[in-house]
């Protein structure tokens, strides 16, 4: 890890912006990028892919933001770690697999979190449902609050979504 790297945050919001609520992740990332908070880099993309591993490995901490079709009422936080057994079997990677790749290739998997936003509609369209838009707003607030603190000692709070 390079000196000074621990205070940098990487926010990756991913999803398809033509599939209604699946675009929640990119919407959050774009909003975070617009805020221009110091020490916070945001990346919006349709899917996670292997070349993201270098960027991830260089970050102090990473927040993966994704829409979730699993239901639930509000945004969810979860701590992430590289799985013991990872594989790449499609054109896109899961966050844990990307962390495993970062560790394997670049020697480092930073502390990471998954922030999920409940998705209600996944048809064709560019608009978010009101529920998911509310989740996006909540996610932006949570990320800005979390990243405004000194990073390492606040990981517990981040995990709890406080």
């Amino acid at each position, binding site marked *: 890890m390079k000196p000074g790297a621990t205070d940098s945050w990487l926010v990756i919001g991913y999803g*398809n912006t033509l*599939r209604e609520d*699946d675009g929640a992740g990119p919407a959050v990332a774009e909003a975070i990028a617009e805020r221009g908070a110091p020490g916070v880099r945001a990346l919006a993309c349709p*899917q996670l*892919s*292997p070349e993201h591993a270098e960027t991830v490995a260089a970050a102090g901490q990473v927040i993966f933001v994704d829409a979730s079709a699993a239901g639930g009422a509000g945004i969810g936080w979860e701590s992430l770690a590289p799985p013991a057994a990872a594989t790449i*079997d499609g054109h*896109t990677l899961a966050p844990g697999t990307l962390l495993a*790749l970062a560790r*394997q290739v670049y020697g480092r998997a930073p502390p990471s979190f998954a922030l999920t936003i409940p998705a209600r509609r996944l048809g064709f369209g560019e608009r978010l449902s009101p529920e998911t838009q509310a989740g996006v707003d909540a996610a932006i607030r949570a990320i800005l609050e979390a990243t405004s603190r000194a990073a390492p000692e606040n990981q517990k709070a981040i995990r709890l979504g406080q």
Partner: protein
Amino acid sequence: MASRIVIDPVTRIEGHAKISVFLDDHGNVSDAAFHVVEFRGFEKFCLGRPYTEMTGITPRICGICPVSHLLASAKAGDAIMAVSIPPAADKLRRLMNLGQIVQSHALSFFHLSAPDLLLGWDAPPADRNVFGLMASHRELARAGIRLRQFGQEVIEVLGGKRIHPAWAVPGGVRAPLGNEGRERLQAWLPEVFATVRATLALYRGTLPAREGESRVFGDFPSLFMGLVAPDGTWEHHGGRLRFTDAGGRIVADQIEPRDYRDVIAECAHPSSYLKSPYYRPLGPEAGMYRVGPLARLNICSRMGVPEADEELRRFRALGRGAVTSSFHYHYARLIEILAALEYIERALRDPDLGSAELRADAGINSRRGVGASEAPRGTLFHDYSVDANGLLTGVNLIVATGQNNLAMNRTVAQIARHFVTGGRITEPMLNRIEHGIRCFDPCLSCSTHAVGHMALHVTLLDADGKVRHEAWRD
């Protein structure tokens, strides 16, 4: 007693894709069908919008080949305006497409296929993946990631963003290649050339041991289709359509992409909503054709660049006339990466790429526009119809995965015939069917980022619908 085996990849939102293997009364494989998603939803979604928006919308169809949709869409827009775009704009679009070919083929080869090819199909599943590959071929795996990064860098240097660059527009492109970006790419070239040369040498060394697989992984006669230059040279963005047969003979040549309906028809199967394109004059059976790297190398007379031409000669020795095994899509992909790098190197020396004359302007001069470009997986058509105001009244997208559908069915059936024994689903069968599909590198991730996961659910059913055997792979 007739039976059916179903292999059902799990997806989150849509992209319903499954494999059905049909057994006859004697338990022998009689047929197979690979069902993939099509983009009818996007086609409907776009109606009523200005055609000029399509270069911003259609790249978002797919996270893995957005540049392909971008360029085909821009070409369809050119046709609606009835303009010839400035030469520099054409060169810049070509450069971006070469970057797309490099990054997409690198992902397919190094991350998805190399573990099977270099570690073997019977290696433990826990090891037979890119992480296992890193343990045995660490530098190769790292170099593969860097190669893909280079392709992405070409796209980013031109478009400003790696994914979904709204850079190509009807009439041309928005920006030239800057000196800083040109120098960055030129400095990177020696490394990626070294990677692909070393990989080709390694891969060629594995071919003798893979003769068995090459005979059952989709080795059958078919037509091949793609774009070629007027003199038959390999094409990836311009040119016209050529069909050749399994003997390497030209069946049809120099067909304008806008006339694709004269030579391509679609048939429907009762088991699927997916239509299967075929060469119209020969009908669905004899007219089955393949697109993509294998097809492009079979139809062209030469690559047009020295190192790739030398490699093409080695490749051609694998067949008589045409190379007919789908297994050799992998080799073809590597050769196309090499060719793309040679063309990129050549392009970066061209001062035209810094030109300020990049865009033609015109109104609506044609109510229909067809754009065709070679996506990494094969020829991509965007066919738009507009009203007098330029609002879309019809959109038809013909993608490579759909065009390869009949050939993928045939490939799966051939593999299943070889490996399905005793009415049971075995690990070797799963591994090889999975890889048979992977030869074509079908794009299942075009609808959402979650689609494309190749988890398999295989069920063997008897004629009464009773489950005889099931196997899962997450």
